[in-house]
């Protein structure tokens, strides 16, 4: 499976070549670290998080550390940051409700379909709820996916309260004793309090109507995103009780390094990554493999 991931990530690697060159070049540690900082910033890890990674490298390596030592230390450091909460990915073993949340254009609808396809393949009883009652054709988009995947979709009407759609979906999810319900929500900018309150209501309905279900709230982040990912994660955590990140569009040249800062600052795990437009283009996030794929 990871051979495939590596293949898809091939393009993202070019920027990291520079780092690799440094490892081979026999430069002094500080010079190597400077180059490393640049590469991390170019990967959207951010000034602050990059600084902390470098500090850790300084304390954990000797002044005369060779390229190989630094390479290992860097990979260890990044992997450790991304591993702290690596356990507990939802597997549909008990009734699970997955909320897909995030700003506009991150890929929530496509990612919801990918998750539905995956759990269906695992033999789970899967349902989709189209709780995006705002964006034009969002309902149709998810309905088309449902048809393609053979997964039932609970739809709402445009302008309706998304919490009402979720309420209906939960009732039919319970009646049919489903395993996994994936809820697609409308994109919203995290600074819009009204829309964030609306999301909190959706979450509340899930908890109230299906207290026995596991609630997984995934922030869908586009790999091209910059430092705004961090305030976004903070706000969505506050309103929708985030349990993890779904990183999308990892098949371009963007590296999605912002998730390093999120994992570190907010202690949130990255659950899945999406790498294409097809329903099978979904991978479980593995910190070690991710770091290896980026630096290999």
């Amino acid at each position, binding site marked *: 499976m990871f051979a495939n991931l590596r293949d898809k990530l091939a*393009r993202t690697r070019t920027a990291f070549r520079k780092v690799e060159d440094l490892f081979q070049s026999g430069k002094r540690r500080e010079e190597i670290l400077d180059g490393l900082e*640049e590469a991390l*910033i*170019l*990967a*959207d890890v*951010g*000034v*602050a998080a990059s600084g902390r990674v470098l500090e850790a490298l300084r304390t954990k390596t000797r002044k005369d550390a060779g390229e190989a030592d630094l390479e290992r230390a860097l990979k260890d450091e990044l992997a450790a940051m991304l591993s702290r909460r690596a356990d507990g990915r939802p597997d549909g073993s008990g009734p699970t409700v997955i909320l897909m949340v995030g*700003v*506009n*254009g*991150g*890929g929530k609808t496509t990612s919801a379909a990918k998750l539905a396809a995956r759990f269906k393949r695992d033999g789970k009883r899967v349902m989709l709820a189209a709780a995006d009652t*705002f*964006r*034009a*054709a*969002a309902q*149709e*988009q998810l*309905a*088309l*996916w449902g048809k*393609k995947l053979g997964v039932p979709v609970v739809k709402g009407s445009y302008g309706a309260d998304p919490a009402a759609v979720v309420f209906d979906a939960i009732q039919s999810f319970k009646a049919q004793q489903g395993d996994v319900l994936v809820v697609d929500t409308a*994109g919203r*900018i*995290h*600074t*819009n*309090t009204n829309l964030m309150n609306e999301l909190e209501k959706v979450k509340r309905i899930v908890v109230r109507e299906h207290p026995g279900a596991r609630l997984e709230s995934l922030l869908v982040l*586009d790999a*091209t*995103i*910059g*430092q*705004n*990912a961090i*305030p*976004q994660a903070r706000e969505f955590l506050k309103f929708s009780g985030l349990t993890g990140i779904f990183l999308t*569009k990892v*098949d*371009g*040249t*963007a*590296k999605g*390094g*912002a998730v390093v800062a999120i994992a570190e600052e907010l202690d949130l795990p990255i659950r899945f990554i999406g790498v294409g*437009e097809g329903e099978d283009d979904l991978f479980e996030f593995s910190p070690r493999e991710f770091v290896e794929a980026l630096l290999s």
Partner: protein
Amino acid sequence: MFDQLSERLERMMKFLRGEVKVTDKNMAEALKMMRLAFLEADVNYKVVRDFEARIKEKALGEEVLRSLSPAQQVIKIVRDELAGILGGQQKPLLFSSRPPSVIMLVGLQGSGKTTTCGKLARWVAGIGKSPLLVSFDLKRPAAQEQLKTIATSLGFPFYEMTSARMASPKEALKELLVHTANRGFDPLIVDTAGRLHVDDELMEELRLVRAILDPTEVVYVGDAMTGQDAVRSAQAFEEKIGLTSVILTKLDGDARGGAALSIVAVTGRPIKFIGVGEKPDKFEVFHPERMASRILGLGDILSLIEKAQGEADVAETEEMARKLRKQEFTLEDFKKQIVQMKKMGSLSDLLGHLPQVGPFKNLAKAQVDDLKIAHFAAIIDSMTPEERENPRVLNGSRRARIARGSGRPVNEINQLVRQFQEMQKMMKRSVVQKLLGGLK
């Protein structure tokens, strides 16, 4: 949008203002702070380096050292350079001298192309044009329906493109152009499939559409939240397709928007519009000068005034400004202002236009509930003229009467009075008075 960036730069400027002379040493400090501020704002690393070098060269020149106020001059250099990168003068949307004009929108997935098509159609209709919309996104499920829904809800025609038609693309595109010209539509607004810029197949498809339609404008739709990669994707579209301008989307959040600098720096194409919300009217003409001022913490008062003049009664606005200056502002005026603000759109929007420094610092963050505005208006309506002129007479029994009349709880009336008094106090501050002076 550039809130935090402004804050950082403001700090740097303060630092510089405290210095009597610009020296190599304090300049280096200041430039480092600027570099970090820009990097945190997602301006591309290389763009930042470039910018830094230019500032350094100009700021350390003889001219500055000899001048009386070097800090002032450095501020001017930074501002001018920033405005320079952002495009100097504001550039209008181009139309062909031989209609129909074709405006083609390209960009990555999820950058907001389809939503922007609707906004753009509404904007051109506002200047008397009759747009036709078409989408070449035949891959994403329901992409056609999305644009069709947007077009229909705004009352614009939509041209249905199908895979069957596109099987012979040249004929299909020519047919589209004939249809547009024959029905007298102008411009034709073309939505395209979002795909990663490394997707050669898509680029080939876009190149073909571009070659046959010969668009007047090829607009790159860029997401203001993009990080370092903004440079690479914009550059790829510029090199492989050829762009004429940029529209920046999702500026309604708190993204620092460094992508704006990156995209413009790398493509050399001007930003013409910005998207500031999901609804079709959340679309504004981009002003480079203002944006540069805004980045430097001067705020976007001009945009605010333009918006106010567009939608509110100009005479009333002026009268209000006069009263504010003279501090004759009463609850009656407060209500008028509330009603006007409702006309202008949400209050939260408006507050976003104020400079995010000084007395306004946390104002934009204060969430304004638009429903509350309606309640406030109801409360003021339930007051006697005397009470509106002089809220100090509002004792307990008067407040209870107003509560009954307006159907709002007494504590809300207390809150209104308190807010009004705070506002009066704020209006007396010299900074605000100065700003209002500029409002004349």
